[in-house]
C-alpha cells in the first residue's frame, strides 16, 4: 500500500512502488483528466505538479513521491494562478482537440508560479516539452501572456 497526497486529499492505493503515478491516477483513482501520450516523457500530456513543479507522471514511480503534494488538472483550479490560466484558455479559445491541453495548462501554471511575467524565451523553455499536434502553440503563448496580465 502506498499513500499519496493528491489534490489536498490523502489517497491510499494498493499498487507496487515502481508503478508510474499516471497509471495510479487514471486506472486506480479514476482521475482521467491527466492524459497518456507517449509514455516516455517526450510529449508532456501527463504533466502534473509535485510540490508545485511540473513532472511527467508517466515515468514517475509512486514509491518516490513520498509525502510531496501532487496536483492534477482536476485540482489546479483551486489555486488562484491555476484558475487564471484556465480562464485565459477559455477566453482565447485555445483548445482544438484538447488531448494535450491538461498538460499544457499544468506546465503554463507552473511557469507563471515561478515567473509571473514570462518573456517569449521563458515560455519557450517551459513549454517546449509539451507538444500539440493540432498546432495551438500560437494561442497557448497568447493565453499565457493574457493570464499573466489578469
Amino acid at each position, binding site marked *: 500500500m502506498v499513500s499519496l497526497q493528491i489534490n489536498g486529499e490523502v489517497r491510499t492505493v494498493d499498487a507496487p512502488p*515502481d508503478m508510474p503515478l499516471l497509471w495510479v491516477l487514471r486506472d486506480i483513482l479514476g482521475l482521467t483528466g491527466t492524459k497518456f501520450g507517449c509514455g*516516455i*516523457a*517526450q510529449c*508532456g500530456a501527463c504533466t502534473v505538479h*509535485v510540490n508545485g*513543479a*511540473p*513532472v*511527467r507522471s508517466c*515515468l*514517475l*514511480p509512486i514509491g*518516490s513521491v513520498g509525502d510531496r503534494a501532487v496536483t492534477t488538472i482536476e485540482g489546479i483550479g483551486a489555486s488562484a494562478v491555476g484558475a487564471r490560466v484556465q480562464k485565459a484558455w477559455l477566453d482565447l479559445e485555445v483548445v482544438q482537440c484538447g488531448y494535450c491541453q491538461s498538460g499544457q495548462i499544468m506546465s503554463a501554471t507552473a511557469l507563471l508560479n*515561478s515567473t509571473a511575467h514570462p518573456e517569449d*524565451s*521563458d515560455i*519557450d*523553455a*517551459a513549454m*517546449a*516539452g509539451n*507538444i500539440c499536434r493540432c498546432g495551438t502553440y500560437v494561442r497557448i503563448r497568447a493565453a499565457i501572456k493574457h493570464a499573466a496580465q489578469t
Partner: protein
Amino acid sequence: MNDSSPTGRAGRYTLIGIVAILAVVLIGLLWMGVLAPHPMDFAGGTRVALTEYHAQDPTGVPAELKSASLIEQGEYLARAADCAACHTADGGVPFAGGRAFVLPFGTLYSTNITPDKETGIGNYSDANFLEAVHKGIGRDHTRLYPAMPFASYTYMTTADAAAIKAYLFSLAPVHAPAPQNTLSFPFNQRSLMGVWALLFNPDKRFEPRTERDPQWNRGAYLVEAMAHCGECHTPRNLMQALNNREKFAGAVQAGWRAYNITSDPKSGIGAWSEAALAQYLATGHADGRGAATGPMGEAVDNSLQYMTQTDIAAMVTYVRSVSGIASSDLPEPKASPAPASHAEGVAANSDPRGKAVYAGACASCHDWTGVSPVIPSATLTGVRSVNDPTATNVVQVILSGSHRQAADTRATMPAFGSAYSDEEIASLANYVTARFGAQPSAVSAQNIAALRAQN
C-alpha cells in the same frame, strides 16, 4: 665484388638497418609482452599458489552458494564472468552468440556457447573448454581472437571453469551458426593469434597475495579472473594487449569511453565513497555520481546485479587498492546543480540550437538544473560523462538511449539518433556539457557521424 664497393656498402647498411629494425621490434615486443606487468603486479607482495594459501578460499562461489548444485554454482560464476555480455546478440537467445564487434579492420562475431553439437559447444570436453578459457584455443585447434578475454579468464580456477561449463551444458541447445567474420588480411589469419597468446597471455591460474586480506584476494579474483574489468578500463598497447603500466586508467571501447577507475581523486574514483561504489556496481546507479549506461549498463544488468553484497564489497576493496593515475583531459566533476532558470548557466551567445533541442527533448526528465524530478538515475549533476570534454558517452547515450534491464531500476531513456541530425546532436552535446559539466565539449557533426558508425 669488393666490400668497399658502393653496392657492398649499401648491402651492409641495409643489413644493419634490418637488424636494427628487428631489434627495435623485439625490444618493443619484450616491453609490451614479457617485461610488462601482469594485472595484479601493482599490488606487490608474495604470490602463492592457491593450494598454498591457507586463509579463506578467494575463488569459487560465495558462502551462500557453497551447498548449491554445480549448475547453480556455475550460473553464478557465468554471471560473474559475464559470458552473456558478448555471447548474446541484441535481442537474441542468451549465449547463442552472433553479437557483432565492429573493428577498424572488419567485423568479428561472437560464437554460440549453448550445448548445440553442430553450432555450439556441445562436443567440447572439459579439457576443450579449459583450453578455450585459459589459452584461447578452440576445439578444432583454431586460435580465438583476444576479443574473447582469455588473457583474463586464464586466472580462473579449473573448478570454476568446469562449473561454468556444467551450467552452459544445462541450457537448451540452440542451433545458431556464427555469422562469417569479415576481417581483412592479416587479421583473418587466426594462427597469428597463437603468437599473440604466447606474448600476451600469462596462462597462469590465480595466485593470492599473502600480505593482503581474504577480502582483497576475493576481490582480485572476481575483478581479474571473472568480471575482467580491465578489458575495457585498461588502455591497450599497439598489439591490442592490455597495458597494465596504466592499469584502469580508462580507454575507448566500441565507441564508448570506459572511464578511469583508478584511485585518482579528480579523474578516477578516488573521491567516491565505498557505499557509492557498491551501490553503482550492484544497481548501476550511485547518488551524485550518475547511472551506468552503454556497455557498463549491460555489465550491471547481465552480471554485477547478481553478485552478493559481500562479493560486491570485495570488488570495491580491490578496485580501490589500484594506485591513482590522472587522466589529464578529465576535470574533477562539477558537483553543484545548474541554475534553475534556463536563462542562466550557459553563455547567452552560445549556439542556440543545443538549448532549443534540450528544451524540447531533454528538460522534462533532466530539468534545467540537471537534477531529475522524475527518476534519480536521470540526474546529471556530478556525472562523469557530462564532465568529459570529449562528450563521447553523452553523444552515445543521446544516439542510442539507455535500456537498462536491472530488476529494481526503470532507467529508460529513449534513443534520439534517428530523431536528430548530426548537427543537432553535436549542438546538444556541447550544450549539455557546458550546462552541467566542469568543461564544455566542442564536438562537430563529423564527430557524431564517426560515433554513429560504431553503433
